[in-house]
């Protein structure tokens, strides 16, 4: 059996990859994917703990996160398409119309 710490380490690596991608990347789709990566990193730690403690609540949480992530993806992609249609770019630094 794989020990818990391996799962947690992988989960942490996934999450940090997501954070770094979010911070570094300029392409809005990549940023979006980085967010998904962070969510999945967290999901992994949820299921790992659930398995370790034999508690179902962690797995239930993961379903919730997936539902929310799906909804978010639907809305977010719609926004991205709308932004691309008007700005003809996916670079977030150029989508700064609301910035002071």
């Amino acid at each position, binding site marked *: 059996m794989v020990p818990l710490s391996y799962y947690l380490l992988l989960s942490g690596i996934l999450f940090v990859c997501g*954070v770094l991608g*979010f*911070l570094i990347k300029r392409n809005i789709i990549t940023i979006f994917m980085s967010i998904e990566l962070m969510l999945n990193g967290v999901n992994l730690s949820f299921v790992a703990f659930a398995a370790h403690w034999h508690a179902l609540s962690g797995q239930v949480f993961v379903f919730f996160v997936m539902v929310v992530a799906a909804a978010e993806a639907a809305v977010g992609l719609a926004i991205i398409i709308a932004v691309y249609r008007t700005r003809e770019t996916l670079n*977030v630094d150029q989508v*700064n119309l609301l*910035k*002071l």
Partner: protein
Amino acid sequence: MTPNPYLWVVPILPLAGAAINGLLGRRSSKKAISTVALVFCGAAFAMALYLAAGFSSASAPYSFDLAHWIRSGNFQVDFSFYLDQLSLVMLLVVTGVGFLIHIYSVGYMWDDDAYYRFMSYLNLFMFFMLTLVLAKNYLVMFIGWEGVGLASYLLIGFWFTKDSAAAAGKKAFIVNRIGDFGFLIALFLMIKHFGSLDFTHVFAAVRSLPTETTGAGLLTAIGLLLMVGAAGKSAQIPLYVWLPDAMEGPTPVSALIHAATMVTAGVYMVARSSAIFERAPMAMMVVAIIGTLTALFAATIGIAQTDIKKVLAYSTVSQLGYMFMACGVGAFSAGIFHLMTHAFFKGLLFLAAGSVIHGVGGEQDMRKMGGLRVYMPWTFATMGTATLAIAGIPPLAGFWSKDEILWQAFNASWVYWLIGVITAFITSFYMFRLMYMTFGGEYRGAAVEGAHGHEVHGLDAHGHDDRSHGHGHGEPHESPWVMLGPLVVLAVLSVFGGWVAGYNNHFEHFLAPVFQGTSDVAQEASPEAGKSTLEYLLMVVSVGVAGLGWFLAYLLYSRRPQLPARIAASLGGLYRAVANKYYIDELYAVLFVKPLIDGSTTILWHGVDQGVIDAAVNNSADAARHVSDRARHMQSGNLRSYAGWIAAGGAVVIAYMVWMGLR
């Protein structure tokens, strides 16, 4: 002490008038404004008459507690009103003369744009003045005292767009403040030592103290401080300088506030505090000396003034000096008597002067008047009456009161009497000089040729029917009846007012209960014996000098009009000093005003205000700005940098928790 629930109504009436006109006047018609102002002021007068009709010396004094005010341990002050013989006299003078001047103002101020404001201020003044004279304790009196100061400031600076008027208003207010300072300290001393400000309590406490014959004690201190207050309000040396400048205000204001009523508040206060003064002979002596010196000093300045209102202003200062002289020698009732007659004839003089100024289109310089006798006969007649009264020609009002003062002064010391008589001579001289310059000779105004203009303007074509023409051009004209009416009433009072009250010392007997216990001073030693040959002799002397002053004025300003200039030239420096009011204003400017301004500029303004207060505020603001200037770079508006901060924060928290967990 008899309760009388109507007392508080008297001051409230003008306050209501002031409030109505002040709040609604801007949109009302002038007729409505006049009606409100006159009705409320007249109602106060009617109320005063009603109180006077119900007044009986047996049940006096009356009092009424309107409301509680200060309750602090044993010390208490209430909104209380008080009516005894003294306040009754003041009440009638203030409401009576005040009402007449209200009527006059309707005519005088009719063309002014801020007519409603003027009438509202006048009513407000009446309220405060009535509060002052009807107060039952020093604190309520102080409300009135400060209030009349405020009203005076507002009215002097009524034409505030004129720099000189605004400055005069400020000057009056600031100089009065010096006097109020003394008054306040006196009140503090009373609270500390008597535990009360109520007249009856304070005077009872004072009467139980011994007379301070040797050295100065508490009562002398209180007396002197009260005198400081009185000197400010009643324009005595050294605080008289504001009154002549106060002539910048409209003429009815000069008549009401700066001649008939407000400036006499100091005399009233000193007379009201007679119980304190009679136990402090030294303070009384100071009062007498200040009064005497002021009387003489102001009268000499009056000789050389050319502005008709300035002459009257210095005359007022001088006459107030007489009143203080009377109070100082213990003849309080004589002082109040002169206060009353002075209110009649000086109010009349100012109103008549206003009528003259009105008639010649705003000119105040007497050198540009002359010959007005023909153009304005009613003004001439009434002003002549007042002049006879102030000069002390029997049997007019001024003669009785002035003679009474001089007689009482003589009983105290012949020095007071001598200076008083000299002042009477000067008074007579400058008043008749004013009359001859204004009404005698030929009209010198408007004609550009000046002294050469012998063409006396036709009188038939212009006159009373054609009043619609504007000011500043045309012939001098008589004032409308709304202005002449009060003049006539006051002239009648100037003639008979003194005769009725002065005959057989009626007035003194009436006031005697207020000033009883004034045993150790010259007051009313034996009224019957007062009619001695000596008194008649002194009477003849004072009438004589009045006649002499008249004659001299006639000689100089009617017979030989070129002579005064030559005399002035031969006197040189002395004349210049007098004409420039002895350079007192300049002296004060050098001694007090300039050091004060310089000190305020360098130390208080540049030093304390800019150096400490502003610096503290500015520097802390600068510091905050510098810190936030650095800190604001965190908020770049870049979403990913925020995320970075969040991530960094999260990392720090996790590191901390991990580190704590490992320990």
